[in-house]
């Protein structure tokens, strides 16, 4: 029994080591601290979406991936769980990054492959979708780009 347990531990340890996640410096993104006025989504008389508010803004994303230059990695856009709660984001890109969507508490893949330049840049159309019944005050929504090294 002992050898089997030992091997199982090794496998787990290897997985942990491979799943190293690092937050990417996106300090070159503009606007970096954007303001967004949300509007009501379609007010269907009998629609479950009647309480949703949405807003879209354009971001010039600039990710500093120089620490991983000439290596391969997977980049995710993460939306940590935060107020106002039921929050989601979807985005389109110019092609350098992948389009996608994410709900609060999750993350979505935006890049996978070799990193051949110190910076990855793209223009992103980001749309936020929230429950309007929670919008009695303003909120700061935090995002982060994460690197999973391969």
């Amino acid at each position, binding site marked *: 029994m002992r050898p089997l347990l030992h091997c199982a531990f090794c496998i787990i340890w290897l997985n942990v080591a491979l799943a190293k996640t690092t937050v990417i410096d996106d300090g070159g993104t503009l606007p970096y601290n954007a303001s967004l006025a949300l*509007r009501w989504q379609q007010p269907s*008389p009998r629609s479950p979406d009647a309480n949703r508010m949405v807003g879209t803004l354009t971001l010039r994303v600039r990710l500093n991936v120089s620490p991983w230059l000439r290596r391969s990695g997977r980049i995710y856009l993460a939306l940590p769980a935060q107020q106002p709660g039921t929050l989601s984001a979807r985005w389109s890109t110019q092609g350098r990054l992948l389009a996608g969507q994410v709900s609060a508490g999750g993350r979505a893949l935006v890049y996978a492959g070799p990193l051949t330049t110190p910076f990855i840049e793209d223009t992103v159309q980001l749309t936020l979708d929230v429950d309007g019944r929670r919008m009695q005050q303003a909120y*700061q929504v935090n995002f982060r780009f994460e690197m999973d090294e391969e």
Partner: protein
Amino acid sequence: MLRPAFLALLAAFSAPLAAFTVNIAAGTPRMVFLQVGLGSFNGLYDNGGTPLNNTTINKVSVTVPAAAVGNGTAQAMTTDSAQAHSFWDNYVFCNPPQELYIGGFYRATNNGTGTVLVSATVPTALVDGAGDTLSFGKVSWTSRGNGDGNIAQPFPAGTFNAGTVQTIGTIGQNQWAESCWTFSYKNDSVTAAGTYTGRVLYTLTAP
């Protein structure tokens, strides 16, 4: 053997973290809109349109043939409003001149399932030039909408309560509500010949 790896991971997460933020706020947290008869809209609401003010006061009327006055047969009334389309999505919801459009919406960011009331301030009577009167209680309406089938209407059928402020419908929070009304005159009494007029004021009240 574990300790160096653990320290390396810790260092990766404890470095200064850059992450962009978006400050969100409700652009229009509270909105109300009420339209009775002809209205105006900048575009359509489901495409980002916004309400415009329309000061038109529409008329609903009927001319009772002399031979039919007071015979107890209700007389269908028609409106001078040509509003057939809903400003929500441009759907042809009402059939004027038989039907009068009534609709609106109520938007609020509070966490509730509240509704707002729409009321009618009803004069005691319609009056002609000679001072003769007809009770507003002789005017009733039915309610429907194209494509609605038999579902309950937000502005249901009713009869005016003369000289009162009566609730004539509700609008749920964050919903668009609309109905089409067909009015009729009860025609159950003989009155002096004349043109009887009166004005009902419709009000949407939100907290």
